[in-house]
């Protein structure tokens, strides 16, 4: 499965290329931090966060949603380094 971080940038880049310069971009995003970083980095133009009725339905429980923990909305950039474990054969360990 493609990660969100891998999948969205090509689409945003494609959008950014074809969008006219005067267009107003409004974004209704869940998990704001991760997706917002992608928008800033790959769309290449200013955008405004909004709350849409469609987003309310899609995210379903947004208005009554329970509080969100910070770790849910992070990219965890240091995870690959921390998770870098090399497999050492049993015999070579001693």
């Amino acid at each position, binding site marked *: *499965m493609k990660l969100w971080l891998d999948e969205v940038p090509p689409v945003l880049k*494609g959008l950014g290329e074809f969008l006219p310069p*005067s*267009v107003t971009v*409004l974004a209704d995003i869940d998990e704001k931090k991760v997706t917002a970083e992608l928008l800033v980095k790959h769309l290449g133009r200013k955008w405004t966060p909004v*709350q849409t009725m*469609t987003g309310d339905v*899609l995210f379903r429980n947004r208005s009554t949603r329970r509080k*969100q*923990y910070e770790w849910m909305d992070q990219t965890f950039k240091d995870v690959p380094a921390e998770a870098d474990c090399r497999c050492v054969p049993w015999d070579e360990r001693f």
Partner: protein
Amino acid sequence: MLAHHPAVSGDSILFTASPYRHSSNLLPSLGAEGHVAHHDRANPARTAREQSPFFRLPEKIRLEIYRLCVPSGFVFDVREHNTFRGLARLSATPQALLNRSRGHFEQPSDDSLDDVGSDYEFGLDEDNSESESDGVADDEDDYSGALQKNRWLNATVRRQGWLPEIRSLLTASKRIREEVLDVLYGENVFRVIVSPQASAKKIQSRFSKTKVRRIRHLMTLYKQFETLADYLPQCRIQTFIRQEVIPNLTTLHIVCDPPTGTAMTITGRASATSPTR
């Protein structure tokens, strides 16, 4: 202002056939811009003589009248047939919005998880739970307070009585048709689902090229589905939309929901299966 103007006091002006003659001089073909201002610039003396009282009104007022009769400022789903019906079933639930079965969605959030025991369901051990609760982000306030509410309404929140008026106006005269089409396609939002299922084909089959080029507001809707990701290309906007629709836009709405979102906020069940976390 409209109520005092004699030309707009009766409904007959709107719905009777106009004496406007469809000469090529008076009705220049619409280009990619498709704006109605061309009509008023073409041969003004002759136009004024032959126009009905309705067309002697300023364009701005005519457009206001059209806006009272046809939808303006609403979000329509491109899957609708007919286009401006405003089907409740296409926006009532996330499943319907994205044309997916119920099995592709997580269970709805349970507010009772806020009570004692929610940490357990999130799989947090005792040591972590305290530090995590310190790091709670008050996103609820962000959404309800800081976020600007979009002025565009889902079409389903209003009565579904537009089609007769739209049909009447579109068949009244060519000039009214052109002006009404600009309102219909230029002042409403069209919602497209970004998915392997072909939204572009639906646009191509439902709208002619000239109508598609009048679209000024587009909403792209995307949610990543883990279950289909192994064998289907997920995130793509079709070439037709990129080439025919996007270059003419004035507003683009992006609505997207990464897989970590609701799955993480609901229970620990979904998080155990997702490789993204």
